[in-house]
């Protein structure tokens, strides 16, 4: 059995004021697979993803990236190379406003990996090409549409060649047209390029077409795990039924 790309065991997280958001969440993401986290708003999907992305230290539990311990009993490892192996795409593209699209992508390879500017740019062009955004290389972030911005943000994460790409509702801020544009890119990355991906999404069509495994979260717990077939079932779980009905 190969080492999974990402593994989480017993993740717990509570906010001081509002109480528990995650209780004992465990998951396992195999290489070259797409893992979807679904659930109603407030079920803890995004918080779980932020924990997996090492942006939020969990109160308890451990996370292994490529078999390496990144979070141990709630404490995030100091080693930055582990962080780099987890790429992230957020709800908001959060492009660096002072840099062109190309520079947005090239900044981290240049400054974090220490690559020469030319090499960093070459890699960044390739990453932009993968999301069909090479023609946008010299544009400023405020000259891009929402969908274009999100594609550049995806390229910015991909250029670091992460072991796993985490996507947190990447289309929640976009209209249906732009949503299709971004989801098409993600689908291509997942199905054609074999990118390992954990995605929080409300887009069940995408889940049905691209996800290899699905976790349904409810009230901070992983209530049901399964394959994309889960979406077609009825009567398995009341909460899942209710969620599927509303979506």
């Amino acid at each position, binding site marked *: 059995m190969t080492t999974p790309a990402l593994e989480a065991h017993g993740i717990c997280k509570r906010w001081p004021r509002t109480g528990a958001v995650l209780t004992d969440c465990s998951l396992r993401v195999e290489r070259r697979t797409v893992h979807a986290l679904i659930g109603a708003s407030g079920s803890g999907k995004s918080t779980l993803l932020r924990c997996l992305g090492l942006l939020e230290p969990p109160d308890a539990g451990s996370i292994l990236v490529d078999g390496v311990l990144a979070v141990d009993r709630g404490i995030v490892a100091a080693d930055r190379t582990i962080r780099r192996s987890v790429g992230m795409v957020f709800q908001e593209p959060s492009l660096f406003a002072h840099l062109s699209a190309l520079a947005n992508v090239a900044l981290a390879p240049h*400054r974090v990996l220490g690559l020469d500017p030319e090499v960093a740019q070459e890699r960044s062009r390739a990453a932009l090409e993968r999301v069909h955004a090479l023609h946008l290389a010299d544009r400023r972030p405020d000259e891009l549409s929402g969908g274009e911005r999100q594609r550049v943000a995806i390229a910015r994460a991909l250029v670091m060649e992460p072991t796993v790409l985490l996507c947190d509702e990447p289309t929640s801020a976009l209209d249906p047209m732009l949503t299709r544009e971004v989801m098409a890119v993600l689908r291509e990355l997942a199905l054609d390029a074999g990118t390992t991906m954990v995605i929080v999404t409300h887009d069940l069509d995408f889940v049905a077409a691209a996800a290899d495994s699905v976790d349904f979260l409810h009230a901070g717990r992983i209530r049901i795990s399964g394959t994309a077939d889960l979406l077609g079932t009825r009567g398995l779980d009341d909460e899942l039924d209710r969620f599927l009905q509303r979506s």
Partner: protein
Amino acid sequence: MVAAADDGLSRMRESGIMRWGCDISGAAPFTFPDPANPDRIIGFEVEIAEELARRLGVRAERFSADWLALIDALDADRCDLLINGFEVTADRERVVAFSRPYFRYTQQLVVRAEDRERFASLEDLKGRPIAVLNGSASIDSLRSAGVPASLIIQYDDSLAPFTETVLERVDACLQESLIARFYAGHDPRLALVDATFDPGVYAVIVRKHDEALLASVNGALKTMQADGTLGRILQRWGLWSDAQRDLGTDRGPIVATIPEAIGTPPEDGLPWSLVLWSLARAAAMTALLTVVSMPIATFLGLLLAIAILHGPKPISRLCRGYVLVMRGTPLLVQIFLLYYSLPALGAWLGIPELLTWNKIIVGIVCLAANYAAYEAEIHRAALHAIPRSQWDAACALGFTRWQTLRFIVVPQSWRLSLPAIINDLNSLIKDSSLVSMIGVQELLAVALGIGKASFAVPSMLVAAAAFYLALSLLSDWFGQALERRARAVRSLPEPLHQ
């Protein structure tokens, strides 16, 4: 070196220089810019100082600062002695030592010409406000004559009491006789009241412990008085009166009064080309102070803001405290404190070079340190305005906190803070005039100095304002260029090794 500093005389002999303190923008006929050539400082005390130095076998070197700050400057060893119309008073004798007197003055009451008959003495002015020069012996004279403090109106500027009298804001002013004669003696709107009173004397001031220096100064003054040299100087400046004989001053051969000694507005107007040239150089000083201190303040402010927001708690608190203190205390006080505590600080730290820190450097350090506190708040607001999501995105890409600040957050916050910083640059141009208190000859000080000596304060102020406006427009233009540059989006990362 430190040992020699304790003894002014031996140090003076060693260096061959007598540093004498005065305020060149104070008043005529003491030490003032020549109206015909504002670069030249003239006055009867300039001549006394030069003669005194000659007799002590050294060269006279003028040290200038605001009159009210001169005694502190002497204490701080910025100069060896003071010659600037210091009246011998009991209050002053407690802190400094006076030489034998070199001039005898009386208090002169000045009223509006039309009031000449109405106000013939101090009694006639009972219950009316009287203007005086701040810190002068006129205040003591009025107090001992029973005038209540509320009716003694003090001005920092020796010319203002006359102007206030002319403008009818006060009914009279009391000034020492030679100032009154210079400024009001030839003004048809003003009249000198005949009844003079409360005579007093001027003397050279040295530090209390400088006994050897005091003895030499007294010896030299005595011979200057006896051989008629001092009498000749006083005659040249139209200051001779028989009362001077009481001090042991011989009149010497009769000489004519020089034209500079007579305070009249120049008939053919100010020598504008010379005046503007002086102002232009003073404006260059103002520009220098601003151009050097503002970038330092901006950079220091950024470091402070970063330390406050992201530093470890003790450092963050310390920086917060710095901002509070620097913003909460007057810049003027900071300038004084730094300038006059440097020698002591230098001795304490074992760095005597601090003593010789130039006034301009002290001015720049103070302006930069003070403005850094204001810039820190601007940077702090701008850093706060960068969304949290930028930090998340950078963190996910593996940037360290410091790298995130350096390459992502600060380049963006800089654009936001720039307009406010340019605004502060504008006010720094004008605040830089405060360093004139320690004698830096910047725009406002030079304009006032020339204005007072030439009876042209209003027009000199307008001229100074025009120069300030020009500097301000320049800074705006520079600010706009900077903003354009900051707004431009960089297409490539900067080279790795800069």
